[in-house]
């Protein structure tokens, strides 16, 4: 059985070493000027350094360029892509077709992963972006396990699926936290309310807490629970999903390191001895549960949930 790539989002260059040791195969990094909702801010030097460390360990580094660009930022794309080519990034993650067009112009051999987060909902569309040049599609979190498996069956591109952590639910271009403060009459100077402020929206009806933060791309709202599929990996691994992702945003390096090592174990055990996986999976789950931060429950996202419309 083929092992999937274990992909994680580090929060700093220092994490690359630690998470590699813990068993990660690949990293997604980037800066908010080009990418969305990153676990850490990696300026060019950091990207370069990360790639150096990772490549020495035979690991891959992908760079996020999946923001929605307005005209003013389109001008910056070519230079950044040329830089990523120079430092030998392993792939660029894009959502906006402006990136795809620019890659064709300046770095035609650069690998592309398609990730808009919410719109990769059927296999045909994954293959469409494949025909346009993407090597991989990152599936929307809002489809269920059967749909994931069916998509993998029909896919002509690699398929990446998030199996752990927080997911994004919402992006507005407006500064919604700042606007609320100004409406209240406080905080009259314009400033962004970033991830470090640990703000969340409380929904009393569902007793849910949705993390919220602002950056140059606007306001982001995140899911109230963390996906945790560590005890449900068998079907995904049987289907030979190409890459499974642990989202590290808004988590400590210690937490991410531990989680990566547990998933590493789960994947290795299952691919070598499936029966043994079924013996240990509840313990693996319990180990994650034990380190969950305040206010973060675990669930299985949409893998076993139906949506209606």
């Amino acid at each position, binding site marked *: 059985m083929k092992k999937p790539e274990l992909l994680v989002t580090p929060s700093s260059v220092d994490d690359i070493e630690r998470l590699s040791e813990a068993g990660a195969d690949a990293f997604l990094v980037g800066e908010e000027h080009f990418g969305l909702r990153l676990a850490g801010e990696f300026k060019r030097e950091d990207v370069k350094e990360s790639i150096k460390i990772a490549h020495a360990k035979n690991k891959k580094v992908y760079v996020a360029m999946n923001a*929605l660009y307005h005209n003013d930022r389109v001008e910056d794309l070519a230079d950044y892509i040329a830089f990523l080519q120079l430092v030998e990034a392993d792939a660029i993650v894009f959502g906006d077709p402006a990136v795809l067009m620019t890659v064709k112009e300046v770095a035609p051999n650069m690998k592309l992963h398609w990730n808009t987060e919410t719109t990769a909902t059927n296999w045909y569309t994954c293959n469409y972006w494949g025909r346009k040049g993407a090597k991989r599609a990152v599936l929307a979190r809002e489809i269920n396990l059967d749909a994931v498996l069916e998509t993998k069956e029909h896919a002509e591109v690699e398929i990446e699926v998030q199996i752990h952590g927080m997911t994004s639910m919402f992006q507005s271009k407006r500064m919604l936290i700042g606007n609320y403060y100004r409406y209240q009459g406080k905080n009259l100077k314009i400033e962004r309310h970033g991830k470090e402020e640990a703000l969340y929206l409380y929904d009393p009806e569902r007793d849910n807490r949705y993390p919220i933060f602002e950056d140059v791309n606007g306001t982001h709202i995140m899911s109230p629970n963390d996906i945790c599929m560590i005890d449900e990996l068998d079907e995904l691994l049987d289907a030979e999903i190409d890459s499974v992702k642990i989202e590290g945003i808004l988590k400590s390096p210690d937490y991410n390191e531990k989680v990566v090592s547990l998933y590493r174990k789960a994947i290795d055990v299952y691919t070598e001895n499936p029966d043994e996986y079924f013996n240990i999976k509840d313990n693996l789950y319990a180990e994650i549960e034990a380190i969950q931060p305040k206010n973060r429950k675990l669930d299985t996202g949409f893998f076993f949930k139906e949506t209606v*419309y």
Partner: protein
Amino acid sequence: MAIENISTVKDGKRVIVKKPELLAPAGNLEKLKIAVRYGADAVYIGGQEFGLRSNADNFSIEEMREGVEFARQYGAKIYVTTNIYAHNENMDGLEEYLQAIEDAGVTGIIVADPLIIETCKRVAPRLEVHLSTQQSVTNWKAVQFWKEEGLDRVVLARETSHEEIKQIKEHVDVEIESFIHGAMCISYSGRCVLSNHMTARDSNRGGCCQSCRWDYDLMKQTDDANYPDIPMFSEQDAPFAMSPKDLNLILSIPKMIDIGIDCLKIEGRMKSIHYVATVVSVYRKVIDAYCEDPDHFEVKKEWIDELDKCANRDTAPAFYEGTPGYQEQMYGNHSKKTNYVFAGLVLDYDTQTGIATIQQRNHFKPGDKIEFFGPDIQGFSQTAGTIWDDSGNEIDAARHPLQIVKMKVDQQVFPYNMMRKELKWQ
């Protein structure tokens, strides 16, 4: 690339030669006909499948055909929205559906998902394909991509400004459509799954339950599990909400025409015929007046007031005129009281007696302040006089929905003119 010539000089006076298409929504045949009669150049409708707004009234193929035939008499076009992001399970029946739409004589479809774009090009090539705002296209290079993919028109993200749209028009030669009026998402379209998470309803397949407009408590988390989290509001503050004011670009229409935007779009397939008629007729007047004499044009106060008569939320120009601040959101009470209600639809008018036949749409009675408007009259107001039922008996009020009544009116009216009643709030 320069923006093509928008105006020319005729008899010593500048006139606009490139008039944008005025595109209106319609949730059913009645609304479609009203939109066309009141001046829409094109109308977009939803079919029974593959469109967002799963709870709006939607058109059967037969109704589409009837709509197309009606619109054709006025030189108007019909587009069908098929703008869901399909899941695997939604793929069945797509080909037959697109062929049926094409057969019905529809001009084009409005699409977000490449699955539907490519299927349409393959099985229903006579249909124009317009890229939906659900794709959130925000820059010229993305527009260029979709043009090269063979799309006939791109509907831009509502987050684009005047300056940005101008640059897009300068860079790419493809039809651009932009929203001018109506409700909107506070997120980038297609990038919100709040409903999915909160109520298991898929917003990108039309199931959105507007979770963004609910009230929330903005809290700050403390690191220590033993300390409670901190509320970021005080007792007297309204709760955190993300309810945007509705879009209203009446004042920006001249600028939009000047940069050559090809189509100006009104939102609202769920809105009433009164709403559609009011909004379409006002924008019709604005566009026509500006195009006829751009150098002496002014937005009339009566047009602005007229738009206000069908608004149940406050309005603002949003991103077209810069980045919207807190004044363009609503906290606490999200709706506003309307001062007018749609009271009746004119069916007939007797020039001899000056008596109109009216279909009741809301309660009215003698003494009420009412006003009439329509595409072929100057709006006027009067006080309602004696009302008779259809057998000629005097009645004290028109109380029954769709009841046919007669009443004397001060000026000539025509079928499909509308009557509103002014509401008096204590």
